[in-house]
């Protein structure tokens, strides 16, 4: 499984531009060939082109609902709140028109209560998201679920603010 990392791709692009600038005199145009300065192989230039192929901008456009890939939940609940339905609809439709993409749906819970019960609850959350993506056109073979229960908190705090962040399902795109 190759995981797409748009930030990394973007970083390569920036690096390519910076390094190409360093490797040339100020009067020369920076371009793909200039990136050969990294290691003499031009690897950075090919990285920048791949980012275009992945159309990362569409998924990363902050104005697009697709840029939101975290769905939050109430305590002990796997009910998708109404405000997340347009987001999941957009992801379902995007997946329907981009069969080359797959999404791993990660279910998480907060730390409260028992760990094994939370592992099962995390799976329920991932599957609740999966159902809505399927209803909006994603194909079953594009979607996988995994639960981490309470084992991977984004915020290790022991308070309501941390718990609210940790009760989540995350859409992880890959090809």
């Amino acid at each position, binding site marked *: 499984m190759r995981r797409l990392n748009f930030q990394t791709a973007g970083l390569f692009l920036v690096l390519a531009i910076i390094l190409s600038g360093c490797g040339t005199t100020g009067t020369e145009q920076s371009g793909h060939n200039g990136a050969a300065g990294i290691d003499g192989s031009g690897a950075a230039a090919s990285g920048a082109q791949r980012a275009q192929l992945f159309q990362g901008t569409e998924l990363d456009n902050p104005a697009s609902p697709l840029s939101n890939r975290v769905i939050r939940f109430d305590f*002990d609940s796997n009910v998708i709140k109404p405000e997340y339905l347009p987001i999941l609809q957009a992801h379902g439709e995007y997946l329907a028109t981009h069969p080359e993409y797959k999404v791993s749906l990660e279910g998480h819970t907060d730390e409260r*209560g028992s760990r*094994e*019960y939370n*592992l099962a609850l995390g799976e329920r959350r991932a599957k609740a998201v999966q159902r809505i993506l399927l209803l909006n056109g994603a194909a079953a073979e594009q979607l996988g679920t995994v*639960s981490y229960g309470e*084992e*991977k908190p984004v915020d290790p705090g022991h308070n309501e603010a941390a718990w609210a962040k940790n009760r989540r399902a995350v859409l992880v795109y890959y090809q």
Partner: protein
Amino acid sequence: MNLTWTFVLSALILLLPTRTSAQVTIPITGGAIGALPIAIAPFRVESGAAAPPEDIAAIIQDDLYRTGLLAPLPRKDLIAHPASLSEVRFQDWRALGVDNLVVGSVSPDPDGGYQVSFELLDVYKSSRLAGKRYRVQPNAVRTLAHTISNVIFETLFGRPGGFNTQIAYVETERSGDKTVHRLVVADADAHNAQIILSSDAPIMSPAWSPDRQYIAYVSFEGGRSEVYVQEVASGERRAVASFNGINSAPAWSPEGTQLALTLSKDGDPNIYILNLASGNLRQLTHSPSIDTEPVWTPDGRQIIFTSDRGGGPQVYRLAITGGEAERLTFEGSYNARPAISPDGRLLAMVHRENGKFKIAVLDLQTRLMRVLTDGPLDESPSFAPNGATLLYSGVLGAKAVLATVSVYGRAHEQLGIFRPDVKEPTWSPL
């Protein structure tokens, strides 16, 4: 495979908090009303002997206090420090109201190390109940102290004390973006911690085999939950459940040949019985709800588990042959993670009360439930093999703690405060 074995060869090393970053403190707080009063005199160091590296009487005192069945007199209240029966003035101890007195001494052994002797005395009968002499190397003094605690407990209560048993727990340590997860085995008083698995992925639900030779656990190292069985002494291990979906909540059958597991390979999490020798798998529950956290009754004939088939999580009981599950818990809207006492009579669990998660005990005969701890984030109760003490994890301020509480609701003690997060303690069998 991220597998780290660490062996500790000298007890002296244990005193340094370098092996794991665990920092163990044993504060003794609170009274023990109704427990048997006992006095443990400091063991006299005879002339010619170097002071042993551990305070034997203090270790015994902590062991006995933690059961909740005995109330050791604070050392400062001891009226004398006798080292043998011949030095004891029993009437003085009767006046103090103690039922039993432990005395002992340490003398040099000609072969190196120490000779340690102790006597357990009945204050009212002015007689000796038990007494032994041991030869011990300096690095085994702590182990010897636990052995003496065993003799005292078994003499007074007629059942094993289990003070030489071990606990296993999971600790996690965050540094920047990286989190390290470790499976740790330690003595029952949290000393002598040894890492048996280190991973950058979460580890869950350690469970001792009945013979203490294996630990089953859940590891996410493969990108999802899978169940492994690892031999404690060698570190050798194998994955025993790697189906699609959840593989978790391993529980050993009393004879150690089968594991009860939670699998969601067919959609919803249900409980299965895995035969470890044949690999044969049998589905026990068939519900669209969450069924998880199975434990076996000591007779091996029933499985007790958590299910939300009634709406919220509650504890149920089911015959190993299947059939209708019987609901056991009715107090409160959240009861989960059952643990059963060695005699099969008590059920400890995580119980929510006023928004706080506490440890509670249900008596399966009287059906009375008692809340033992204050929360707010207590979980993972585990019975000591002597059945008197529960070990659990909780959060105190921002710190994770392992704590013990007497099932009789008398002694409430923090076993230790650990700098990294510590969770899921589980006590080994005898």
